[in-house]
């Protein structure tokens, strides 16, 4: 029997506790075998959707099977898996059997972890929790970064370098020690963008090569600084949901740049997995006077 891993993000403590306890009770009673795991390793994510946290955004970028856990009347797509709080063992069992059936019909590739993604994965995990407390990471220049839900705190010079250049950053770990009172701060989204753009240039393990993604919000390039191809990539991904291959083809960037962009946008929380309404035709040679004019303007300003 295949073992499926279950993780939870953004659940209230009581719901998370109930889920964990019930999974133990259900062991051997479901059509599949379910094992509790960290969210980054999970095949199925139980996501708290009531708190308005980043949990849903983070979960949507993973392309994993998602169960929306809600206290109120569920607002959902017909294809969503929903679990209404408070829930009972029998409801969870029914739901897991439905998911097992879905997974049997629509097999998914299990995400593969990579050591070089450790800082990014630890950032995703930390920001998906409602109140993770302080997390701290070391930087290559001997500095430290403190992280809570919204902000990154560090010395002013460390934050400036974070904006200007690639920087080695370790994985975030819980810390009982808060940042110094004179620490400067920047948005967590800025750190996410940095980690992704300066990452490995490979497909992040929490995204799917075949999935289409749409950029739901542009980065503030006035604040972050802009590098070659960033504007082109954002414009393409904001206009339509795109796969990695389509992004490369339409923007003219390298495959590594497109991977970096997808990683950066998803770590900043601005990328959503979205099915294309209909497959887009391949980009054709643009020969109209208007097209040439726009292309000339873009090149003129580059």
């Amino acid at each position, binding site marked *: 029997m295949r073992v499926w891993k279950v993780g939870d993000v953004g659940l209230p403590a009581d719901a998370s506790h109930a889920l964990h306890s019930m999974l133990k009770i259900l062991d051997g009673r479901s059509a599949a075998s379910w094992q509790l795991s960290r969210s980054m390793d999970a095949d199925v994510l139980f996501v708290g959707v009531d708190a308005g946290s980043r949990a849903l955004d983070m979960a949507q970028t993973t392309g994993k099977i998602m169960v929306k856990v809600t206290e109120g009347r569920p607002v959902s797509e017909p294809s969503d898996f929903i679990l209404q709080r408070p829930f009972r063992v029998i409801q969870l069992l029914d739901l897991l059997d439905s998911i097992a059936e879905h997974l049997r019909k629509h097999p998914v590739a299990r995400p593969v972890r990579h050591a070089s993604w450790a800082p990014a994965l630890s950032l995703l995990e930390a920001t998906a929790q409602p109140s993770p407390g302080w997390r701290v990471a070391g930087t290559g220049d001997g500095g430290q970064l403190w992280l809570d839900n919204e902000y990154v705190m560090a010395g002013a010079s460390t934050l400036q370098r974070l904006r200007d250049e690639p920087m080695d950053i370790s994985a975030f770990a819980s810390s009982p020690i808060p940042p110094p009172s004179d620490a400067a701060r920047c948005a967590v989204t800025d750190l996410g963008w940095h980690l992704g753009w300066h990452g490995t240039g490979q497909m992040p393990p929490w995204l799917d090569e075949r999935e289409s993604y749409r950029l739901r*919000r*542009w980065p503030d390039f006035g604040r972050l600084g802009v590098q070659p191809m960033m504007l082109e990539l954002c414009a393409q991904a904001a206009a339509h949901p795109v796969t990695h291959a389509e992004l490369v083809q339409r923007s003219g960037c390298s495959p590594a740049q497109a991977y970096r962009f997808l990683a950066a946008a998803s770590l900043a929380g601005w990328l959503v997995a979205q099915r294309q309404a209909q497959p887009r035709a391949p980009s054709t040679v643009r020969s109209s006077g208007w097209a040439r004019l726009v292309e000339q303007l873009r090149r*003129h300003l580059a």
Partner: protein
Amino acid sequence: MSGATSEAFKLVFTGPMGAGKTTAIAAVSEVPPVTTEVTNTDKQANGKATTTVGLDLGRITLGEGQVVHLYGTPGQHRFRLMWQIISRGAAGAIVLLDASQPDVFEQARIYVDAFRAWVPSGAIVIGLGRTDHPDAIASDILAAMLEGEGWPLPVFSVDVRKRADVLLLVRALACILESQLDSEVFA
């Protein structure tokens, strides 16, 4: 395609009084812009000495005689009629806002709502100035507000006195227009 001929097209700079439209056009135009600045008699709305009452006009030449015209609208709402006239045939719009003004969200709504109707491509970029002011709102908050309204537009913190910042806005607009070349707007 509405908004351009094969030899020229029009970009509009708009936004409330004092947001920096005239300054932005001057920063990127290759010729001294034509302006219609007069003494500001509406000091309650903004304390600056002069204001645009007609339009500003600048130019970027791309080569082979191809030209981008940069139009600036008057900022005062009583000249709203001019906004529509100036934006007729525009390929895109750059909305400049002042982050330190308490009504910045309302101003964003007014200008984006108006110019989305008038710019057929829907290509709009927001330039948010004075973000270092103590009372300034963060660009992320404005971007989230616009996203909530169903307008996922680029919002960039800029200093319109800096040519590079204004070019960033124009480049983003050009990239958005290029990304839409396959859509029905440009068919």
